[in-house]
């Protein structure tokens, strides 16, 4: 008798089990017929959450629409605009007005939103392509940076989900361009954030649209504007980042752990000539400069549309997912040399995230990827990747039916597509979006802004049965909210190190990336089977906090300098 002969299954099938049944069957043995820990195959055992689309029921009735200028864009800003800590939604509308929806979802219940009057002139809400939440003036209230076809707007939050135009107050010239991307960071010792706006085609240029990509603009607040809530930032100095190559996503990143943020820009090759993906250095007190071949930067041309970053391999350096037409890229820093050069290697194929064509249906043409976001949707500690997909309009060489991706990371490091099993494979042209826990139950829900189709709002039911609507938890989780006084109240640029057992999970608070979509609020962390964790915060100025001991399945608030966290409980 070999040892293997003694292998003893803890459970076995009572009869033949069909594949469909396997996909929804539970992991656990016993008489229970649970699906809460449903897994796919031996090679993809990570739990697959079940999403149900309930936008209409939740009160979200919104479409992103418009002609050519709105083939791109279609963003969502996820922010708490009424100080109840629940994530509210601001949705770009293109030629339809952008709309603000206040979250009224009870904790753990169905999703529920109410359309909210913003107090803004209607003209400012037209021609909106995207939006990012950010406390620009350090007054403790989130503002909205709104990207438009036309003058971009900084909308100053004044509480109660109301906003006021603030371009003049902040001496901000919103330009007249066609803005499709944004990112923000707090540079060293800066009182106010540095804002980067990515523009698409310069429609007024001769020969437009081909080869007429507009410049991007960097706004550094004047250093004499001072800090504190009594003063307003002065963005009168705008720097042109020339050349621009039709930026559809941009993200500040400390790509080399130098402590200095650089600006990564993903560009659409469809319209540029001689362009490429870009990385701009932002030396302290000096003008930005693009990394070039001599710096190690390698030429890459893609139909870049969305950026997401996370540290997949735990080396302290971010990996970047870049959406495109056809295959998605997943870049990791090539550490072949001792020097820290911005040389990236594509590991998308190795990791299974190319997502180059629809994973279901009969349409075998290449996919078109837009918003990208790493999040742990099943709370197993491993970052998963969501990609919004959809044909630009009616491009014949690309898939017409192009469902969004939900690539679930496995313990092998591979990602496995589970968009269909998760229930998000709708026939809609996705653009921007975001994952956030709208009903505060520890499971990340999903909003997707679709072009010329209703916005999708998916409630994550976790391990719920296919026939049931009762959410069932997956792994344990944490939601972490950071706050500090003075400048940069929401700790943009902070890094979180969450220790569970012998592993450290990392998160970074960023403003930018995705596709015209950003969010602010709790940082979600899947904890798997850990019942507790220790959180350390590297605040934006580089100083580390002590370890905060926290219990799982909680919302925790960390105020800089506090001895202990505060626990927070959502309204029921």
């Amino acid at each position, binding site marked *: 008798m*070999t*040892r*293997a*002969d*003694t*292998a*003893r*299954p*803890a*459970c*076995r099938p*009572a009869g033949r*089990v069909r594949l469909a*049944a*396997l996909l929804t*069957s*539970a*992991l*656990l*043995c*016993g*008489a*229970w*017929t*649970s699906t*809460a*820990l449903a*897994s796919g*195959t*031996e090679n993809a*055992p*990570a739990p697959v959450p079940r999403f149900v689309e309930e936008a209409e029921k939740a009160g979200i009735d919104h479409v992103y629409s418009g002609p050519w200028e709105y083939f791109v864009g279609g963003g969502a800003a996820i922010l708490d605009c009424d100080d109840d800590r629940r994530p509210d939604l601001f949705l770009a509308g293109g030629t339809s007005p952008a709309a603000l929806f206040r979250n009224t979802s009870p904790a753990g219940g169905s999703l529920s939103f109410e359309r909210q009057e913003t107090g803004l002139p209607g003209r400012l809400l037209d021609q909106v392509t995207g939006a990012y939440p950010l406390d620009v003036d350090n007054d403790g209230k989130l503002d909205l940076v709104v990207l438009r076809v036309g003058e971009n707007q900084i909308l100053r939050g004044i509480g109660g989900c109301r906003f006021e135009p603030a371009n003049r107050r902040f001496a901000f010239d919103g330009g007249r361009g066609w803005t499709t991307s944004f990112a923000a960071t707090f540079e060293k010792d800066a009182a106010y954030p540095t804002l980067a706006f990515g523009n698409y085609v310069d429609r007024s240029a001769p020969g437009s649209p081909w080869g007429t990509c507009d410049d991007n603009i960097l706004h550094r607040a004047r250093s004499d504007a001072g800090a504190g809530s009594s003063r307003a930032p002065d963005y009168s100095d705008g720097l042109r980042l020339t050349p621009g190559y039709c930026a559809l996503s941009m993200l500040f990143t400390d790509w080399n752990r130098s402590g200095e943020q650089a600006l990564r820009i993903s560009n659409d090759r469809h319209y540029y000539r001689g362009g490429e993906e870009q990385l701009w250095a932002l030396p302290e007190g000096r003008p930005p400069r693009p990394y070039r071949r001599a710096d190690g930067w390698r030429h890459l041309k893609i139909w870049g549309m969305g950026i997401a970053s996370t540290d997949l391999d735990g080396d302290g350096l971010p990996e970047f997912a870049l959406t495109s037409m056809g295959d998605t890229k997943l870049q990791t820093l090539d550490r072949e040399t001792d020097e820290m050069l911005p040389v990236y290697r594509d590991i998308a194929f190795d990791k299974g995230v190319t997502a180059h064509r629809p994973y279901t249906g009969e349409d075998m043409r290449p996919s078109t990827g837009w918003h990208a976001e790493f999040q742990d949707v099943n709370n197993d500690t491993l970052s998963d990747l969501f990609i919004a997909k959809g044909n630009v309009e009616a491009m014949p060489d690309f898939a017409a039916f192009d469902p969004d991706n939900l690539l679930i990371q*496995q*313990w*092998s490091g591979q990602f496995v597509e589970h968009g269909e099993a998760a229930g998000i494979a709708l026939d809609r042209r996705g653009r921007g979006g975001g994952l956030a826990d709208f009903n505060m139950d520890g499971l990340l829900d999903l909003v997707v802004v679709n072009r010329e189709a209703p916005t999708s709002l998916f409630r994550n039911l976790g*391990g719920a049965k296919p026939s049931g609507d009762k959410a*069932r*938890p*997956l*792994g*344990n989780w944490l939601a972490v909210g950071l706050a500090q006084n003075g400048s940069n109240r929401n700790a943009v640029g902070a890094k979180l190190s969450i220790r569970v*057992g*012998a592993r450290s999970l990392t998160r970074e608070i960023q403003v930018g990336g995705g596709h015209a979509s950003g969010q602010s609020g709790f940082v979600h962390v899947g*904890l*798997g*089977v*850990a*019942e*507790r964790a220790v959180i350390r915060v590297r605040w934006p100025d580089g100083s580390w906090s002590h370890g905060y*001991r926290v*219990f799982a399945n*909680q919302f925790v*608030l960390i105020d800089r300098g506090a001895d*202990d966290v*505060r*626990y*927070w*409980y*959502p*309204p029921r």
Partner: protein
Amino acid sequence: MEKARRSAVKGPLAATALVLGALAPAFADEVPLWSERVLQTPIDLASIAAMPMAERIARLKQRGEELFTGKFIRADGAGRPLATQAIIPTKRRRPAHQDFQRLAGLDANACASCHHEPVIGGAAPFTANAFVSEGFESADFDTTDPQFSNERGSPALHGAGLVELLAREMTEELRALRDGALEKARSSGTAQVAELASKGVSFGKITASPDGSLDISAIEGIDPDLVLRPFSQKGVFGSLRQFSVNALNSHHGIQAVERFGAAWTGTSDFDGDEIADEIGAADISALVAFQATLPAPSRKTDLPAVWREAATRGEALFADTGCTACHIPALPLASTVFRDPGPLETAGTLRADDVDAPLEIDLGALDFVRALPRDANGHVLVPLFGDLKRHRIADTREPALGNELLGQRFVDRDVFITTELWGVGSTAPYGHRADQTSLDEIIRAHAGEARESREAYTALPEDGRQAVIAFLRSLEIPK
């Protein structure tokens, strides 16, 4: 052959929930009657759950006792060559040199190896101490140096089902207080202070703010999530199920699917011993049921008059000296229905949300529960002589019970849950390290929050102290 056999186990079907009873005949054919294996055909929990309560309990106890007393062998999955003792699945940096090793484990063949005095499920003397390490760093320690592990005695499990039920009810009450304070703070717009008390035990207070945040800096003896965790010497484990899953891995290298299975680790053989899916949810339930139904300790009934009289006087002195402030004679229990999984489990231990309906065991159907007194509300008075609360139990003047160097699960090194004294007359030696040889010694070792009571005890005349001992010695686990 070996490969093929393993793949049969580790294929997709191994990760499928099934009604297992239908397979019994096939397994019966495979396992000879003289098999040494403990984990054979898992029980058919669905059919057992449908049985009348008495029969249900009997069947579960029978299987649970087999699992509790069975000496696991490698074919069962004993051994964890590539996994540490950690509660969170953690790989070893290198394979273990020895499968068995009394310090870092494996340190036991069966649950009963360390829970057997005076009967199965009971305690054990110093001989059977366990060396508790989180298992994340320095998992392979081979020294009793307390910088690597905390040395702990094995407590008796009798009455554990009632203890868990008390803890669940107290957690529910405390959380209701918290939720009420939060709701009131939100609706009133002003901060609300709420005293946290359940069943007469105070756990400090909380302050709820109108924004929904909670100041927990003034809570006492409980974790910030207000889950009362009654098990282990430290009071850091919430349920018999959670503890069983932990202990099976730590002490035996038997890894439960619900914690170490493919969903949470990506493999059905996390510990690398070539045995997949070692113990399933149904067998864990049987193990839990066995422990939950172990009779609660009681009092000696055949005492000679002189002892009886001393014990009566000693019980009064026990109260007079303030010992009952923490060793509360009895706590009221509203419901005797033990549901498995319980309502407070988190991922990694089977949760109520993971199943269609938890298994129900009405402890009220057991004779020892029927025999317990009830209060005016009809609640069962559980005579545990404890408060299910953690206390600092050492100070600089008397550091004996503060001997540990490592905190555990966020609880300081010199803080322990009040030991339930029911059955203390059967479970010498004493203290969390089982190194206090007599009751007098362990009482004198109390300090910290217990200093006043300890001094009241030591101030008693000799016959008074003897009376207290007589009382404590009358609390027994029946043989």
